[in-house]
């Protein structure tokens, strides 16, 4: 609490005093000067102002006809990224974003290896409630794999409220999309993100971690897996086992889709209750 010499304590608090020569009698010239400022604005307002650094000129963007130029760092709602080439999602379901989210609108389940039942660094289902999201961008800040980023899309109005509970399929965007809307920001993190992704892909069995909408990628991966299995069978010279992958892989993407709204609501309520209980405990503890 270092009081600067200009700061003065008065009953209502601390104020900084600036003395102007306001005892001067202006005889109406002050009014005319103010009017001159407004006149300049009026005169200049017939020109457009798109530079954001001028103070004169109309800066209204007539929206439906004219699109606003969105700055790179603009953020609206979070999206998930996947790699264009391999089709792999960057998310490893580390739960960092779910933990930091202030309104607690991010929910995810980790993918499990169908064969062993062990967790895999990939996400099975990812839900963000856009209707309660406050666009703070903490999730994007905290994500160690640069998998979650903030989108520029802002025309989200809908009359269907449930559509604003967004699932993984609708959240996923290719990296090229993000590189297009935020080139410099992506360039900063590109290398690290892709390197981490390569590491993770190696630990992902089957088609887990593939963006579900990329059907041809999934088909290619399956073919690759089938070929690997056939090779293995040939090498082992055992009875040719049917490829187990297709049957086992099916539940992973299907799991999220089969949730009915009621189940979803129940799930969310349970999560919220758990969080509240946790909070209370921590509150009691402290």
């Amino acid at each position, binding site marked *: 609490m270092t009081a600067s*010499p*200009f700061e*003065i304590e*008065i*009953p*209502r608090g601390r*104020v*900084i*005093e*600036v*003395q*102007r020569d306001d005892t001067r009698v202006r005889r109406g010239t002050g009014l005319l000067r103010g009017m001159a400022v407004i006149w300049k604005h009026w005169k200049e307002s017939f020109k457009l102002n798109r530079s954001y650094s001028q103070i004169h000129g109309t800066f209204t963007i007539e929206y439906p006809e004219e699109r606003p130029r969105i700055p790179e760092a603009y953020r609206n709602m979070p999206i998930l990224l996947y790699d264009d080439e391999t089709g792999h999602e960057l998310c490893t379901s580390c739960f960092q974003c779910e933990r930091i989210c202030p309104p607690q609108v991010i929910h995810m389940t980790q993918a499990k290896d169908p064969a062993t039942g062990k967790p895999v660094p990939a996400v099975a289902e990812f839900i963000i409630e856009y209707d309660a999201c406050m666009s703070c961008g903490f999730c994007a800040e905290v994500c160690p794999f640069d998998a979650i980023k903030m989108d520029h899309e802002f025309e989200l109005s809908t009359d269907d409220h449930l559509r604003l509970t967004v699932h993984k399929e609708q959240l996923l965007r290719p990296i090229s999309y993000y590189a297009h809307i935020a080139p410099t920001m992506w360039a900063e993190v590109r290398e690290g993100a892709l390197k981490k992704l390569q590491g993770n892909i190696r630990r992902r069995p089957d088609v887990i971690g593939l963006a579900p909408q990329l059907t041809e990628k999934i088909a290619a991966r399956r073919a690759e897996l089938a070929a690997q299995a056939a090779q293995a069978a040939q090498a082992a010279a055992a009875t040719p086992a049917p490829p187990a992958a297709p049957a086992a892989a099916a539940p992973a993407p299907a799991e999220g889709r089969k949730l009915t709204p009621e189940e979803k609501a129940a799930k969310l309520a349970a999560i919220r209750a758990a969080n509240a209980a946790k909070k209370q405990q921590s509150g009691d503890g402290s």
Partner: protein
Amino acid sequence: MEVVVQVVFGLIALFILVAAAMVVSVRNVIHSALWLIACFFGVGALYLLLQAEFLAVVQVLVYVGAVSVLILFAIMLTRQISGEGVRQLTSRWPVVLVVTVLLFATVMAPTLINQQWNVPPAPPLGTPEPIAGPAELGRGFVNEFLIQFQVVGVLLTVALIGAIVIAFEERARRRRVLTLAEELELKRLRERATQTETPEPVEAEPVARETRPASEG
């Protein structure tokens, strides 16, 4: 044409009397004041009918524009007890009623019985009658009625000052939220007051000065 004038006069007279009756009989004081305004309007219309155009306009300007607003203001400033549910007439109002009706009767009886007003005969049709207008009135005020005019002027000034003096409220009772600048000044003035009491020299407070660009000064 005569019938039209008679009907108009009858309507105006009825309007004035009904409005006046409502003024003295309505319970709610605000309604009473509103009826009073209606009555003033009726009187103004009567002046128009009597071809006193300037007077009609003055009636509207002074009575409707000023006096009635003053009355409404006074009612609202003394509001708590002027609502409904409060007895508005004194207990002896029947006596007053009798007295006023008797007065009306005594005034009107001779008039109705013995109507001897020396009304001059109406001028022949077509010759416009000279009617005193605003210009004549103005000339009258600075010639024949100069003294009276000035006395009324003095009266209005005295009334203005008197009203202010009577209704003046002590300033100390007023409360308003001070602006920050005023609070600062207050603090400074207080400090100065304490300084004069205690002789210890206190260093002058630092004053921040905003540097002004030369173009502004």
